[in-house]
């Protein structure tokens, strides 16, 4: 066996397991321990740990059956009526011990396919013709995406259970029905219809080649058309569902047959109000079915406490099915119900609850004043809410759910920030939310602090204490940066500074616009924030920057597949400037064809599959009568260009500049030859692993050792080294403004989004070796501001200096992941150090930082004995996930990150 990459790097003084600022203790150190969950939350979380991701065909069956029967109806009414019947037919399941009830399906961790968006996966299984037609990019991304083998993932079929998309289990007796449902959507799904029209884009062949070769990882119009946004719970909280129906009836009478001065969408208002009414009726029936089930269980139950709890559940549901909530318990149940309804309406990841602690505060405050609830009870309800959120699954293809999301669903709960009047918004309920997150560690909802200098120290320290327990949350986002970005992007749609304060995080770290709403509860008025922007991370969805550099170096030909992606440029690339310009040309070409194709996808989506319930929550529907597809949201300019592998690109450009163009220690042809030969290493396919740690040398000839050493030794981003940082600055100052050259289907300019989520694994898998010395098939750098694993050697403040050489307010976000050894931040002094570190980065203008507080030895132990570490969580890139549910390439990448031993 040849030498492993780790040995080669060790010999070059570039250890993969680099420890900065000291050395970790020899023995494994655990994280600081917090209190346990309440027994009830513990039991329900334990049940989750033992639950398989389960798919059913119940919702798709009823949706499809009624949609088919309504042929000839208006598209929006056909969809509304089908949704109503699907919601009304969902089977309710309530589990013993639950206080917050309802789920997406009758399974604890349930989900279902929505073939009206895309049925290709099922057809590929049974229909040869369709399979051939689907031999496009999506399949390649699927093939390169790896799920973790542990936890609740059903990666293989067994017994009477069939594995779908490598993650979900479906009972065998439901599979024929699922395939039949899928067949009914052939040539009618959003996917199929938009393929037809996408092909009319002149650049379509380039777009398809880009997708097949995983230069870009996903089409967003029929995969995850909604999400990475913030839900608004205001309307059901203020009016209740009966109140919403009454508003619809009133508005229908006012607008029926009247264009209202708008000759294009004015007449639609009547149908929109009717559609909202119909869907809300379906949701009321769904809630009432749960109430009936609670009543049935109350009858059945013999144990007095459980019997009483079923009675109270029924009473809460019977009330909220029609009325605005009166107290904290009803409000938290209603928010959960609305959240689920959004997720059942469309495929969406990153549907975030937003500033839940500020939204529920009026109920919390008044209940406490009345003595109707105490902190202990609230803490338990918040823990139960965590378990419920963690049970959410998003059903999608392996490429999307595994490759992009790592199985995560990104329900981000934001805290802190500012109130409407500019005062700090952190409150007592948010402190309990943090405490619930510490005690009941789960992946959802992940937490974010919208850091502002005005926030009280005590609140910030509580958040830091939570970080120290190793939860990976809260992440820290710069409030003022986000407000600046809001004004920059949404000013043209009327954003004011006051409204900019209502932003929060959608998805993992997509800053999303919000609005203020006046909530009245028992005669008292509160200004609460709620989401008011369209989905983000739709548009150009993850462009592999190192891959585009590869194409620039090799005249537009993919070196993994041998396929031409871009037209040949025919240049010799004799100067660094010429190379940089060529990279820019190809990048612009990629964004252009992906933007036009995705605009068509989303246009088909909005015509056929518009959201109705989500629109009701978020749009200014009472006043305008317009929904999402008619730009009814307050902020519609949310489409973006997402990048992946920023630092791998920067380090590669730096190595080329230094080794080839300035020092001339190797020629470009020599470096290209070394890249083609993977610097003398076997390919990832040959070693049957895409993990960094598993790569090994092909032979000991040493043909490429010198050039590999030269590029590995070139300056690296993350060390406060001006040579490298100038390249980062050059990239950002070109990339951020160039995104606005492209417009979304709503006629508004796009903007940059710089997060990797998990895409740095499958996109790395599709990319040959890079000029920075990274080997073929291995992960790119994570996030966008994180250093490449093990290359940040001058401490965190040097890393911060490198990361802030550009203005982060030009971008929706940036992403910095830092791994810290538990001993580095031990005790109160350690907490203060970590807070100071965070504050330093925010003050320098960084947008986001998140911490993995963990001993790498623990992660290695968990790789060896996965079954012993079912509850171990880590921070990946914008989200916390169970270690056992992450694919090995990402696991190895997290292990290889620099471990900070001291601050």
């Amino acid at each position, binding site marked *: 066996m040849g030498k492993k990459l780790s040995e080669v790097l060790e010999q070059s003084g570039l250890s993969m397991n680099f420890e900065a600022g000291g050395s970790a203790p020899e023995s494994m150190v655990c994280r600081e321990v917090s209190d346990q969950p309440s027994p009830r939350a513990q039991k329900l979380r334990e*049940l989750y740990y*033992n*639950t*398989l*991701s*389960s*798919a059913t*065909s*119940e919702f798709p*069956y009823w949706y499809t*059956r009624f949609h*088919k*029967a309504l042929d000839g109806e208006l598209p929006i009414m056909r969809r509304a009526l089908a949704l109503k019947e699907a919601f*009304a*037919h*969902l*089977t*309710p*399941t*309530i*589990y*013993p011990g639950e206080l917050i009830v309802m789920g997406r399906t*009758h*399974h*604890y*961790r*349930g989900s279902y396919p929505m073939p009206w968006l895309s049925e290709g996966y099922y057809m590929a299984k049974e229909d040869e013709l369709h399979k051939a037609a689907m031999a496009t990019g999506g399949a390649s991304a699927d093939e390169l995406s790896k799920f973790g083998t542990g936890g*609740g993932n*059903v990666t293989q079929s067994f*017994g*009477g*259970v069939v594995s779908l998309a490598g993650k979900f*289990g*479906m*009972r*065998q*007796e*439901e*599979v*024929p*029905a699922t395939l*039949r449902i899928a067949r009914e959507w052939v040539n009618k799904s959003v996917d199929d219809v938009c393929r037809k029209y996408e092909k009319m884009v002149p650049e379509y062949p380039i777009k398809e080649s880009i997708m097949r070769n995983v230069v870009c990882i996903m089409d967003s119009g029929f995969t995850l058309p909604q999400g990475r946004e913030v839900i608004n719970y205001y309307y059901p909280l203020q009016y209740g569902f009966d109140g919403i129906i009454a508003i619809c009836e009133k508005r229908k009478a006012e607008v029926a047959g009247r264009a209202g001065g708008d000759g294009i969408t004015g007449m639609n208002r009547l149908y929109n109000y009717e559609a909202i009414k119909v869907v809300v009726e379906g949701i009321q029936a769904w809630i009432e*079915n749960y109430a009936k089930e609670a009543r049935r*269980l109350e009858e*059945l*139950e013999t144990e007095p406490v459980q019997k009483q709890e079923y009675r109270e559940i029924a009473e809460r549901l019977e009330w909220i099915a029609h009325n605005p909530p009166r107290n904290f318990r009803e409000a938290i149940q209603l928010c959960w119900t609305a959240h689920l309804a959004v997720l059942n309406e469309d495929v969406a990841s990153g549907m975030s609850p937003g500033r839940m602690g500020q939204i529920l505060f009026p109920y919390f405050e008044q209940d406490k004043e009345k003595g109707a609830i105490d902190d202990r009870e609230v803490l338990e309800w918040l823990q139960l809410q965590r378990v419920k959120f963690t049970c959410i699954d998003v059903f999608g293809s392996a490429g999307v759910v595994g490759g992009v999301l790592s199985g995560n669903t990104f329900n981000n709960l934001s805290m802190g920030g500012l109130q409407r009047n500019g005062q700090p918004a952190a409150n007592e309920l948010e402190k309990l939310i943090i405490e619930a997150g510490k005690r009941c560690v789960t992946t959802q909802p992940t937490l974010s602090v919208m850091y502002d200098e005005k926030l009280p120290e005590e609140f910030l320290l509580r958040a830091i204490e939570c970080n120290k327990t190793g939860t990976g949350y809260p992440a820290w986002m710069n409030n003022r940066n986000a407000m600046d970005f809001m004004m920059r992007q949404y000013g043209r749609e009327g954003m004011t500074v006051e409204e900019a304060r209502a932003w929060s995080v959608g998805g993992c770290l997509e800053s999303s616009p919000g609005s203020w709403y006046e909530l009245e509860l028992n005669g008292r008025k509160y200004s609460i924030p709620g989401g008011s922007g369209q989905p983000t991370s739709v548009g150009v969805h993850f462009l592999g920057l190192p891959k585009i550099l590869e194409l620039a170096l090799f005249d537009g030909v993919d070196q993994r597949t041998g396929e031409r992606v871009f037209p040949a440029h025919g240049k010799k690339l004799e100067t660094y400037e010429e190379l940089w310009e060529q990279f820019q040309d190809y990048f612009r070409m990629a964004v252009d064809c992906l933007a036009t194709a995705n605009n068509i996808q989303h246009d088909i989506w909005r015509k056929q599959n518009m959201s109705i319930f989500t629109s009701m929550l978020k749009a200014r529907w009472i006043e305008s009568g317009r929904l999402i597809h008619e730009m009814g949201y307050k902020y519609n300019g949310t489409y973006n260009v997402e990048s992946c592998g920023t630092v791998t690109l920067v380090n590669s450009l730096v190595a080329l500049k230094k080794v080839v163009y300035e020092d001339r220690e190797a020629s470009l042809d020599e470096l290209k030859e070394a890249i083609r030969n993977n610097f003398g290493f076997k390919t990832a396919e040959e070693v049957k692993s895409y993990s960094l740690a598993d790569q090994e040398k092909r032979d000991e000839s040493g043909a490429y050792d010198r050039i590999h050493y030269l590029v590995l030794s070139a300056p690296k981003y993350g060390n406060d080294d001006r040579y490298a940082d100038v390249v980062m600055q050059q990239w950002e100052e070109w990339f951020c403004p160039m995104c606005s050259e492209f417009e979304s289907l709503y006629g508004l300019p796009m903007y940059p989004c710089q997060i990797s989520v998990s895409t740095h694994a499958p996109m790395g898998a599709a990319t040959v070796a890079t000029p920075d010395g990274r080997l073929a098939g291995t992960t790119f750098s994570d996030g966008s501001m994180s250093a490449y694993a093990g290359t940040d050697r001058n401490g965190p403040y040097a890393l911060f200096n490198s990361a802030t050489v550009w203005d982060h307010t030009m971008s929706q976000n940036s992403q910095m992941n830092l791994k810290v050894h538990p001993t580095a931040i031990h005790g109160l002094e350690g907490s203060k150090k970590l807070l100071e570190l965070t504050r330093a980065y925010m003050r320098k203008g960084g947008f986001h930082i998140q911490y993995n507080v963990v001993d790498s030895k623990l992660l290695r132990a968990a790789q060896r004995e996965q079954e012993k570490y079912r509850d171990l969580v880590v921070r990946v890139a914008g989200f916390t996930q169970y270690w056992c549910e992450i694919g090995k390439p990402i696991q190895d990448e997290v292990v290889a990150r620099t471990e900070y031993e001291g601050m």
Partner: protein
Amino acid sequence: MNKQLRRHCDCRNYAPVDVVKGICHRTKQLILGDEDQCEQYAQLDKCKYCEHFAAAEEEFMGSCSADAAKPWTYPDLIAITCASFKGRD
């Protein structure tokens, strides 16, 4: 066939946790859905137990005569929310 029809997962008091197992509301214990019924079995409304259901030749498929259009359905579709469900004697 009868044995197939009377599994835990066909019982009204079976709360399905996932595709394999569920919790029995009577005993509060986790049980496997495909195991045989117990003495307290209470039939769960499913299409296969409905008068309107007719099995098709294709396994796991059938049709519903409650609707004039006789739409297709499948035997294990839970029908507790179906207003047309009519249990077979």
